[in-house]
Each structure stands twice: as structure tokens, then as C-alpha cells.
């Protein structure tokens, strides 16, 4: 049974700003379905005593000391910017409020 619909793929692609063709929507719906079903099978065999895992490494609390390092020079910061003004990145008109 298919759990991922074509519409769902289109919606998520829209949220992620990924432009997909009609063919790609069909293909990805099928492929994502396989992934979801594989994960579902893992859920079947995992018993309640297996905690949900978000990371493969059994590590916690990797912290950095609160010691500042120099900023990137502003010339380097803006080197990759398509356009800049007064030391700031210039971006096209923003149409929606955050």
C-alpha cells in the first residue's frame, strides 16, 4: 500500500523550494514510499526498550569553551555575495514578512 502520495511529495517539494517535474513527482513518490516502508519495518522489530536514535554516535555533551575568535574579515565575508552595499549582503525585495 502506498503511504506517500504524489500530492504530498509536491507539497513538501514546495516547502523546500524544489522545483519538480510531473515525472519526478511520480518517481519520487514511489521511491520515498520504499524508504518509509523500510523504516516502518524497523519500528516493528524495535522493542520498547530501544530508544529512538537521532545520531549514530553514542556521545553527549560535546561543548566548546566560550572563548571568542576573530571574525572573518568583512572582505572575505562578502566575497561570495552576488551584491553588497555598506558591508552588508544585498538581497532582492522581500515579499513576505517573516
Amino acid at each position: 500500500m502506498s503511504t506517500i502520495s504524489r500530492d504530498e511529495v509536491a507539497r513538501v517539494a514546495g516547502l523546500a523550494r524544489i522545483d519538480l517535474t510531473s515525472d519526478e513527482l511520480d518517481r519520487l513518490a514511489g521511491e520515498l514510499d520504499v524508504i518509509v516502508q523500510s523504516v516502518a519495518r524497523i519500528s516493528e522489530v524495535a522493542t520498547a526498550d530501544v530508544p529512538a536514535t537521532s545520531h549514530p554516535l553514542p556521545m553527549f555533551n560535546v561543548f566548546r569553551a566560550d572563548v571568542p575568535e576573530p571574525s572573518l574579515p568583512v572582505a572575505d565575508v562578502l566575497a561570495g555575495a552576488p551584491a553588497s552595499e555598506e558591508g552588508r549582503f544585498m538581497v532582492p525585495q522581500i515579499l513576505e514578512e517573516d
Partner: protein
Amino acid sequence: MSISTHGPIDLIDYDEAVARFDPVFGIEVHVELGTKTKMFDSAPQVFGAEPNTAVSPTSLGLPGALPVVNGTAVEYAIRIGLALNCTIAETCRFARKNYFYPDVPKNFQTSQFDEPIAFDGYLDVELEDGTIFRVEIERAHMEEDAGKNTHVGGATGRIQGAEYSLVDYNRAGIPLVEIVTRPIEGGGARTPEIARAYVRSLRDIFRALEVSEARMERGNVRADVNLSLRATPESPLGTRSETKNVNSFRSVERAIRFEVSRQAALLAAGGVVVQETRHWHEDTGTTTAGRIKSDADDYRYFPEPDLLPIAPSREWVEEIRAGLPEMPVARRNRLQGDWAFADAEMRDVVNAGALDLIEATVAAGASPASARKWWMGELARVVKTTDGELEDLPITPVQVADLQGLVDSGALNDKLAKQVLEGVLAGEGSPQEVVTARGLGVVSDDGALLAAIDEALAAQPDVAEKIRGGKIAAVGSVVGGVMKATRGQADAGRVRALILEKLGVEG
């Protein structure tokens, strides 16, 4: 997607609104932590730096840059959680909140979603009349701030009509803790006051914990205010509006009052409240419609794969708890006892933001009563003519204590001291410097005073007779004459004693 509202908004009178409807509110407060570096990288945190001069590849979201958690920021978040009586999570994770906006360079904000570091707390908030109101805290989670957009072109620097925008990422990645309340019920007509007192209590706690300078005017503390109305306290919750970026105590109160009146007008007319974000306008005291909640609010949260979970050991949490400073309410009670201020006096001091100033003035040698007299008297009057706070006045607690010292030593009388205060506020230097520069010392040379007394007595011969005849109260008019002649620079008590001595009368 954004809607502009034209024309006046229908409102009904606030008192009528709260008589007809039961307000329920919730507040999300963001506080910028005062760490030296950002949440996930070592770029320095500095206020007011030139644009894009406090950034690293990580805070710019450059490909390949990897975050590492700032341990101090985690400690500060735990401090806040403990101060708000929260449970500290045994383990928690960061998550990506995905959305597209130019001030978020990675196209996601690193935040916490289903596993906040602190949850299930409360804060007992003291209202102006001393009533205690408990605000339940749902959660406090860690996240990072966004950069700053400046809109160019158009009339007012607003997003509407702008031709393009400029982005500064200095603020991007600064550690934030977001504190979310549960729906707060039972406030009734006092809802706006409770909201204001809550945000103010949080600000005081952030400062006491030394986790943030918590300066509202710098945006260190920012509030989003949710408000809904329902027919009665038994009714289900109504649809809420979320007013964003309400950034002063007064605005929190005003924004809630406005939303109560606006929503009540809608509901009373048989309309509905739309679930939307609203923008607060400080100048007009109104809110206007922003974005309607939509599909784009699906942030597709997922666990941040680049960061490991955080599992604060119970030993660490207890160590932090043991090191928590005295909380503001306890400190207030202690100081009130030490200073012997009446309840009403103490409340006025706290509400005027004078507590720290008076404490520092007392520490610099002034008596509590005299410190209160200056800050709550002359200086409070001065600050009323400005838009600022007492702490922004160009005078330090040490200067106030020095000024009082000059009064106590007899070098200044009250009238002269006020002139010296004006001089200090005008930037003329320390109290002693103003005294010297303006030549304001009390005339303590008895010879000069006696000459002035002779003149004053000669001008009012009948008064001298009255005094000799036992009408001691009449001495006041002679003292007045001497004070006038010395342009206020005499010690009135000394003048009185000299007059009585001269006339051979027992004071």
C-alpha cells in the same frame, strides 16, 4: 500573502470588553544570552559592531561549516530553567526549523522542538499592589538568533515598498533562550498588568542570574504576545492572535489592552477572530494584521544531525542550582527589611526601577532614606520629563551619595544641593566640581552671617522686639531675610541659632 489593513479598526471600550469576555493570554519571551561567543561557533558577540564583522563560516551558513555547542550558553539556559522552577531534561536535542528568509543564512534555524532543555515550571509574579499571580511555564528552549534585515527604498524603512534589503549577520547565531508560558487564565481585567509584570519579572531574573544584560531597548529581551477571548471562563479557548516583537514593558501592557478591545469588537459584532500574526505599532498603540497562519508554517522540524544530544548530569544541574544567586523577590524583601521602607515605598522604588540604584547609593555611603529621597524625588521628577529610565540619567549612585555627603557635612543645604544636582545632570562634573565651579558652598563664616543678620534685623526692628518678647516663631522671617541676602547659600539652622544668640533668647 500579507494583508494590509486600511481604515480604522473597530474597538470597544476596554472595561466593557473585559466585562463581556474572558481574556486568556500567553507570552513567548526571547532573551539573548550574554555569552562572549555565539551559540554554535566562536564568532564574537558584540553589540553595535560594523555590519558583518562578528561572523564565522558557521554563523554565515557557509557550506561545510559545522556547529559546536557553546557550553556556557547551556549552563545559562539551565540557570534560567532552574530559576523558573522548571525540570531540567535528562537528555535533549537540537532540531532544525526549516524556513526561507534572508536573515537565516542556513535556511533553517537551529532550535529545540520536542525536547526542550527545561519544562514544566512556573513564576510567581508580584503585581504593583503586592498581589502574587502564578504564571505557568510550559518550556524554555535553546536556539539561535537571526541576522538583521534593513529595507532600502520606500518611505519608512518598512518592508512594504522597499526596493531591496541589506543583511547583517552579526546577530545571526547569538544564543537565545525562548520561554513559553501555558495559556494564562484568570487575569480578567488585570490581564495586561499581569503580562507586563511577568515580562518585567523575567527581565529582573535574567539580570540577577547574570545570563544577559537584558536591555529591552537593545532588543536583548523580546516578547510575542498571544491573546484570545472567550465568553466565560468555562467556555473553550477562543481563536488567538499573536502580536510579534513587543519590546517594552509598557508596550506589552498596551498591546494586550488593544487586542482585547479589537477582538471584543469583532466578536460582539458577530464576527470571528482570524488566527494570524499581528504587528505592534509603538507610535499609534495599535496592531495591524500580518501573515495568516498557512502551509508555510510547516517548518518540517527534524533532529539536527550535526549536533550531539545534551545530557546534563544531575550533579552538574545541582551544582548550578547551588550557585544560583538570590532571586529578585527574596532580595527585595531582604533590602526592604534592611532599609526599613514601608510596603508602598518599596513598591514605588521597584516600579520606578530604582532598587539597584538605591542599593548602590547606600553602598557608596548614603543612608537608605536619603538615597530614596534623591532617586524617588528630584531624579524621578527629572526622568518624567524624558522618555528614559532612572538608570539612563547621567548621574551615578556614587555621585548621589557624594551629594548627600555634602549635605550631611553642612557644606550644602537642600536648596543648594538641588542646584548642584542640576549641574551634575548637565554634565558639569562631580558634585564637588559643580560646587567649586558654581561657587555654591554654604556660607559658614559666622562673621559674614552676622553681618547679614544685622542687616535683616535692622530692616525688621519690630520683629526683633517680638522675638525678645518670646515669639520665637517670628525668627523665621529674619532667617528668610538672611537666606535671601546670601542667595540661599547659608545654613538656615546656623542662622537661626546665631539670631537667637544675638538677641539673647533661648531657642
